[in-house]
Protein backbone atom coordinates (compact mmCIF):
# COMPACT_ATOMS: atom_id res chain seq x y z
CA UNK A 1 0.00 0.00 0.00
CA UNK A 2 2.79 2.39 1.02
CA UNK A 3 4.78 1.44 -2.10
CA UNK A 4 1.79 2.17 -4.30
CA UNK A 5 1.36 5.61 -2.76
CA UNK A 6 5.08 6.35 -3.32
CA UNK A 7 4.87 5.26 -6.97
CA UNK A 8 1.80 7.47 -7.44
CA UNK A 9 3.67 10.42 -5.93
CA UNK A 10 6.65 9.93 -8.27
CA UNK A 11 4.31 9.68 -11.29
CA UNK A 12 2.55 12.88 -10.18
CA UNK A 13 5.85 14.78 -9.86
CA UNK A 14 6.98 13.59 -13.34
CA UNK A 15 3.63 14.66 -14.78
CA UNK A 16 3.96 18.10 -13.20
CA UNK A 17 7.48 18.55 -14.63
CA UNK A 18 6.29 17.44 -18.07
CA UNK A 19 3.35 19.87 -17.93
CA UNK A 20 5.82 22.62 -16.96
CA UNK A 21 8.09 21.83 -19.94
CA UNK A 22 5.13 21.67 -22.36
CA UNK A 23 3.72 24.97 -21.07
CA UNK A 24 7.18 26.58 -21.45
CA UNK A 25 7.61 25.25 -24.98
CA UNK A 26 4.22 25.93 -26.55
CA UNK A 27 2.88 28.98 -24.74
CA UNK A 28 4.57 32.30 -25.29
CA UNK A 29 4.59 34.60 -22.25
CA UNK A 30 4.89 38.29 -23.24
CA UNK A 31 7.42 40.49 -21.32
CA UNK A 32 8.81 37.35 -19.67
CA UNK A 33 12.30 36.06 -20.39
CA UNK A 34 14.25 33.22 -18.91
CA UNK A 35 17.88 34.13 -18.26
CA UNK A 36 20.37 31.43 -19.17
CA UNK A 37 23.13 32.78 -16.84
CA UNK A 38 23.40 31.69 -13.18
CA UNK A 39 24.00 34.22 -10.41
CA UNK A 40 26.08 32.59 -7.62
CA UNK A 41 24.68 34.89 -4.93
CA UNK A 42 21.16 33.90 -5.84
CA UNK A 43 22.08 30.21 -5.86
CA UNK A 44 23.69 30.52 -2.41
CA UNK A 45 20.62 32.34 -1.13
CA UNK A 46 18.35 29.56 -2.44
CA UNK A 47 20.55 26.84 -0.91
CA UNK A 48 20.62 28.62 2.48
CA UNK A 49 16.84 29.11 2.41
CA UNK A 50 16.27 25.44 1.59
CA UNK A 51 18.70 24.38 4.32
CA UNK A 52 16.98 26.61 6.86
CA UNK A 53 13.59 25.21 5.86
CA UNK A 54 14.87 21.65 6.30
CA UNK A 55 16.52 22.54 9.63
CA UNK A 56 13.39 24.16 11.01
CA UNK A 57 11.20 21.27 9.91
CA UNK A 58 13.50 18.49 11.10
CA UNK A 59 15.04 19.97 14.24
CA UNK A 60 12.48 22.35 15.75
CA UNK A 61 9.44 20.28 14.86
CA UNK A 62 11.09 17.21 16.33
CA UNK A 63 11.93 19.16 19.49
CA UNK A 64 8.33 20.37 19.74
CA UNK A 65 7.04 16.85 19.26
CA UNK A 66 9.48 15.52 21.90
CA UNK A 67 8.33 18.22 24.34
CA UNK A 68 4.73 17.18 23.82
CA UNK A 69 5.61 13.53 24.45
CA UNK A 70 7.54 14.46 27.61
CA UNK A 71 4.68 16.61 28.88
CA UNK A 72 2.23 13.77 28.25
CA UNK A 73 4.53 11.40 30.13
CA UNK A 74 4.72 13.75 33.13
CA UNK A 75 0.96 14.29 33.07
CA UNK A 76 0.33 10.53 33.00
CA UNK A 77 2.55 10.08 36.05
CA UNK A 78 0.80 12.91 37.87
CA UNK A 79 -2.49 11.23 37.00
CA UNK A 80 -1.18 8.01 38.59
CA UNK A 81 -0.43 9.91 41.81
CA UNK A 82 -3.88 11.46 41.66
CA UNK A 83 -5.46 8.02 41.31
CA UNK A 84 -3.55 6.68 44.32
CA UNK A 85 -4.53 9.66 46.49
CA UNK A 86 -8.12 9.43 45.32
CA UNK A 87 -8.27 5.75 46.25
CA UNK A 88 -6.66 6.54 49.62
CA UNK A 89 -9.22 9.26 50.26
CA UNK A 90 -12.17 6.98 49.45
CA UNK A 91 -10.86 4.17 51.64
CA UNK A 92 -9.93 6.41 54.53
CA UNK A 93 -13.39 7.98 54.51
CA UNK A 94 -15.06 4.56 54.54
CA UNK A 95 -12.65 3.40 57.26
CA UNK A 96 -11.71 0.28 55.30
CA UNK A 97 -8.04 1.08 54.86
CA UNK A 98 -5.42 -1.28 56.26
CA UNK A 99 -2.30 0.10 57.91
CA UNK A 100 0.07 -1.66 55.50
CA UNK A 101 -2.02 -0.51 52.55
CA UNK A 102 -1.87 3.11 53.68
CA UNK A 103 1.88 2.84 54.19
CA UNK A 104 2.52 1.31 50.78
CA UNK A 105 0.26 3.85 49.05
CA UNK A 106 2.21 6.70 50.62
CA UNK A 107 5.46 5.13 49.48
CA UNK A 108 4.02 4.78 45.96
CA UNK A 109 3.10 8.48 45.99
CA UNK A 110 6.55 9.39 47.24
CA UNK A 111 8.44 7.32 44.66
CA UNK A 112 6.13 8.50 41.86
CA UNK A 113 6.84 12.12 42.80
CA UNK A 114 10.56 11.39 42.81
CA UNK A 115 10.32 9.89 39.33
CA UNK A 116 8.29 12.93 38.15
CA UNK A 117 11.02 15.27 39.42
CA UNK A 118 13.65 13.19 37.58
CA UNK A 119 11.65 13.29 34.34
CA UNK A 120 11.19 17.03 34.71
CA UNK A 121 14.95 17.48 35.12
CA UNK A 122 15.73 15.25 32.14
CA UNK A 123 13.25 17.11 29.96
CA UNK A 124 14.93 20.38 30.92
CA UNK A 125 11.74 21.72 32.46
CA UNK A 126 11.92 23.24 35.89
CA UNK A 127 9.94 22.97 39.09
CA UNK A 128 10.37 25.42 41.96
CA UNK A 129 11.99 24.11 45.14
CA UNK A 130 9.26 25.56 47.36
CA UNK A 131 6.66 23.56 45.41
CA UNK A 132 8.73 20.40 45.95
CA UNK A 133 9.00 21.18 49.68
CA UNK A 134 5.29 21.87 49.92
CA UNK A 135 4.45 18.53 48.23
CA UNK A 136 6.90 16.74 50.51
CA UNK A 137 5.37 18.31 53.62
CA UNK A 138 1.90 17.35 52.47
CA UNK A 139 2.99 13.73 51.93
CA UNK A 140 4.50 13.77 55.43
CA UNK A 141 1.27 15.12 56.92
CA UNK A 142 -0.76 12.48 55.05
CA UNK A 143 1.54 9.78 56.40
CA UNK A 144 1.10 11.09 59.94
CA UNK A 145 -2.69 11.27 59.61
CA UNK A 146 -3.00 7.74 58.22
CA UNK A 147 -0.28 5.85 60.08
CA UNK A 148 0.40 7.56 63.36
CA UNK A 149 -1.15 6.60 66.64
CA UNK A 150 0.62 8.28 69.54
CA UNK A 151 2.54 6.13 72.05
CA UNK A 152 0.88 4.92 75.22
CA UNK A 153 1.18 7.29 78.14
CA UNK A 154 2.94 5.57 81.04
CA UNK A 155 1.86 6.03 84.67
CA UNK A 156 4.90 8.20 85.29
CA UNK A 157 4.04 10.43 82.36
CA UNK A 158 0.41 10.73 83.51
CA UNK A 159 1.65 12.16 86.81
CA UNK A 160 3.75 14.67 84.89
CA UNK A 161 1.02 15.62 82.42
CA UNK A 162 -1.48 18.33 83.12
CA UNK A 163 -4.52 16.29 82.15
CA UNK A 164 -7.87 17.98 81.58
CA UNK A 165 -9.48 16.15 84.51
CA UNK A 166 -11.26 17.54 87.57
CA UNK A 167 -12.44 15.61 90.60
CA UNK A 168 -16.12 15.96 91.47
CA UNK A 169 -17.99 13.89 94.09
CA UNK A 170 -14.96 11.58 94.42
CA UNK A 171 -15.24 10.74 90.72
CA UNK A 172 -12.87 11.90 88.03
CA UNK A 173 -14.50 13.83 85.21
CA UNK A 174 -13.10 15.01 81.92
CA UNK A 175 -13.33 18.76 81.55
CA UNK A 176 -13.96 18.47 77.83
CA UNK A 177 -13.72 15.78 75.19
CA UNK A 178 -11.85 18.08 72.82
CA UNK A 179 -8.99 18.55 75.25
CA UNK A 180 -8.74 14.85 75.76
CA UNK A 181 -8.45 13.88 72.10
CA UNK A 182 -4.69 14.35 72.00
CA UNK A 183 -4.04 11.69 74.63
CA UNK A 184 -4.41 8.02 73.99
CA UNK A 185 -3.70 5.55 76.73
CA UNK A 186 -4.79 2.22 78.14
CA UNK A 187 -4.86 3.92 81.52
CA UNK A 188 -7.38 6.38 80.12
CA UNK A 189 -9.97 3.57 80.04
CA UNK A 190 -10.07 3.77 83.82
CA UNK A 191 -10.83 7.44 83.67
CA UNK A 192 -13.55 6.95 81.07
CA UNK A 193 -15.18 4.21 83.15
CA UNK A 194 -15.18 6.48 86.15
CA UNK A 195 -16.87 9.15 84.10
CA UNK A 196 -19.52 6.69 82.95
CA UNK A 197 -20.09 5.69 86.57
CA UNK A 198 -20.47 9.32 87.41
CA UNK A 199 -23.10 9.69 84.70
CA UNK A 200 -25.06 6.80 86.18
CA UNK A 201 -25.11 8.37 89.69
CA UNK A 202 -28.36 10.30 90.37
CA UNK A 203 -28.15 14.07 90.49
CA UNK A 204 -31.31 16.27 90.52
CA UNK A 205 -29.41 19.04 88.77
CA UNK A 206 -29.00 16.85 85.68
CA UNK A 207 -32.76 16.35 85.27
CA UNK A 208 -34.57 18.40 82.63
CA UNK A 209 -37.39 20.86 83.51
CA UNK A 210 -40.11 18.56 82.08
CA UNK A 211 -39.13 15.78 84.47
CA UNK A 212 -39.42 18.19 87.41
CA UNK A 213 -42.93 19.16 86.29
CA UNK A 214 -44.11 15.58 85.84
CA UNK A 215 -42.64 14.56 89.21
CA UNK A 216 -44.34 17.51 90.98
CA UNK A 217 -47.72 16.62 89.38
CA UNK A 218 -47.34 12.99 90.41
CA UNK A 219 -46.48 14.04 93.95
CA UNK A 220 -49.58 16.31 94.16
CA UNK A 221 -51.80 13.52 92.78
CA UNK A 222 -50.40 11.03 95.32
CA UNK A 223 -50.97 13.51 98.19
CA UNK A 224 -54.58 14.18 97.01
CA UNK A 225 -55.11 10.43 96.67
CA UNK A 226 -53.79 9.79 100.19
CA UNK A 227 -55.96 12.60 101.70
CA UNK A 228 -59.02 11.22 99.92
CA UNK A 229 -58.18 7.66 101.10
CA UNK A 230 -57.73 8.66 104.75
CA UNK A 231 -60.91 10.83 104.76
CA UNK A 232 -62.93 7.76 103.74
Amino acid sequence: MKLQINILKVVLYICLILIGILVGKFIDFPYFEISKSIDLVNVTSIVVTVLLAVLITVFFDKRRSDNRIEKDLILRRVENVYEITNELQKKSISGEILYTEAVSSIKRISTSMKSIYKTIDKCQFSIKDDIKTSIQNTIGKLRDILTNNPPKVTKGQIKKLDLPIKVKNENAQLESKANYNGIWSNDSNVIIKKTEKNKRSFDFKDLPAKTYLVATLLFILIVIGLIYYFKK
Partner: protein
Amino acid sequence: MESIEIKIATDFNYTPGPRYIEEGKNSGEQFRREILANAFKTAIAKNKKVIIDLDGTDGYGTSFLEESFGGLIRNDKIDYNEIINRLEIISNEEEYIKEDVYEYIEDAHNEASN
Protein backbone atom coordinates in the same frame (compact mmCIF):
# COMPACT_ATOMS: atom_id res chain seq x y z
CA MET B 1 34.90 2.65 63.36
CA GLU B 2 33.40 -0.78 62.68
CA SER B 3 29.68 -1.02 62.19
CA ILE B 4 26.62 -3.19 62.71
CA GLU B 5 24.49 -3.12 59.57
CA ILE B 6 20.78 -3.80 59.62
CA LYS B 7 18.72 -3.92 56.45
CA ILE B 8 15.10 -3.91 57.55
CA ALA B 9 13.79 -5.51 54.32
CA THR B 10 15.98 -8.58 54.74
CA ASP B 11 16.87 -8.69 58.46
CA PHE B 12 13.35 -7.94 59.71
CA ASN B 13 10.52 -7.82 57.19
CA TYR B 14 9.58 -6.47 53.80
CA THR B 15 6.31 -5.01 55.14
CA PRO B 16 6.90 -3.17 58.42
CA GLY B 17 3.71 -2.94 60.46
CA PRO B 18 2.13 -0.76 63.15
CA ARG B 19 3.47 0.53 66.49
CA TYR B 20 2.77 -2.20 69.04
CA ILE B 21 2.99 -6.00 68.90
CA GLU B 22 -0.70 -6.31 69.89
CA GLU B 23 -1.69 -4.07 66.96
CA GLY B 24 -0.37 -6.35 64.22
CA LYS B 25 2.52 -8.21 62.61
CA ASN B 26 6.04 -6.82 62.15
CA SER B 27 5.50 -3.93 64.53
CA GLY B 28 7.97 -1.24 65.48
CA GLU B 29 7.98 -2.57 69.04
CA GLN B 30 8.94 -6.04 67.77
CA PHE B 31 11.72 -4.61 65.59
CA ARG B 32 13.08 -2.55 68.48
CA ARG B 33 12.93 -5.40 70.98
CA GLU B 34 14.31 -8.11 68.72
CA ILE B 35 16.86 -6.24 66.65
CA LEU B 36 17.41 -2.53 67.14
CA ALA B 37 17.88 -2.29 70.92
CA ASN B 38 20.28 -5.25 70.95
CA ALA B 39 22.23 -3.76 68.07
CA PHE B 40 22.66 -0.49 69.95
CA LYS B 41 23.62 -2.22 73.18
CA THR B 42 26.27 -4.26 71.32
CA ALA B 43 27.45 -1.18 69.43
CA ILE B 44 27.89 0.77 72.66
CA ALA B 45 29.71 -2.10 74.33
CA LYS B 46 32.04 -2.71 71.37
CA ASN B 47 32.29 0.91 70.17
CA LYS B 48 30.65 0.37 66.79
CA LYS B 49 28.33 2.34 64.53
CA VAL B 50 24.80 1.18 63.74
CA ILE B 51 23.82 1.50 60.09
CA ILE B 52 20.12 1.08 59.38
CA ASP B 53 19.12 0.58 55.75
CA LEU B 54 15.48 1.54 55.29
CA ASP B 55 15.33 0.88 51.55
CA GLY B 56 13.65 -2.06 49.85
CA THR B 57 10.53 -2.28 52.00
CA ASP B 58 6.89 -1.60 51.25
CA GLY B 59 7.06 1.67 53.21
CA TYR B 60 7.07 2.86 56.81
CA GLY B 61 4.30 4.26 58.94
CA THR B 62 5.00 7.06 61.40
CA SER B 63 4.11 4.76 64.31
CA PHE B 64 6.62 2.10 63.28
CA LEU B 65 9.49 4.54 63.00
CA GLU B 66 8.59 6.49 66.14
CA GLU B 67 8.25 3.34 68.23
CA SER B 68 11.46 1.82 66.83
CA PHE B 69 13.72 4.83 67.31
CA GLY B 70 11.88 6.94 69.90
CA GLY B 71 11.33 3.77 71.92
CA LEU B 72 15.09 3.30 72.29
CA ILE B 73 15.08 6.29 74.63
CA ARG B 74 11.58 5.88 76.08
CA ASN B 75 11.61 2.15 76.76
CA ASP B 76 15.16 0.86 76.47
CA LYS B 77 16.63 3.92 78.22
CA ILE B 78 19.53 4.13 75.78
CA ASP B 79 21.44 7.40 76.02
CA TYR B 80 20.42 10.04 73.47
CA ASN B 81 24.00 11.02 72.58
CA GLU B 82 25.02 7.39 72.11
CA ILE B 83 22.16 6.93 69.63
CA ILE B 84 22.86 10.14 67.71
CA ASN B 85 26.61 9.53 67.51
CA ARG B 86 26.33 5.91 66.46
CA LEU B 87 23.29 5.93 64.20
CA GLU B 88 23.59 6.17 60.45
CA ILE B 89 20.52 5.86 58.27
CA ILE B 90 20.35 4.89 54.62
CA SER B 91 17.12 5.91 52.93
CA ASN B 92 17.55 6.58 49.24
CA GLU B 93 14.01 5.69 48.26
CA GLU B 94 12.34 8.08 50.70
CA GLU B 95 15.02 10.59 51.69
CA TYR B 96 12.81 12.62 54.02
CA ILE B 97 12.42 9.62 56.36
CA LYS B 98 15.98 10.19 57.57
CA GLU B 99 15.08 13.59 59.00
CA ASP B 100 11.87 12.20 60.48
CA VAL B 101 13.77 9.49 62.37
CA TYR B 102 16.13 12.03 63.92
CA GLU B 103 13.10 14.15 64.85
CA TYR B 104 11.46 11.18 66.61
CA ILE B 105 14.65 10.55 68.58
CA GLU B 106 14.90 14.24 69.49
CA ASP B 107 11.24 14.35 70.58
CA ALA B 108 11.58 11.22 72.71
CA HIS B 109 14.69 12.72 74.31
CA ASN B 110 12.90 16.00 75.05
CA GLU B 111 9.90 14.16 76.51
CA ALA B 112 12.18 12.03 78.69
CA SER B 113 14.09 15.04 79.97
CA ASN B 114 10.93 17.04 80.84
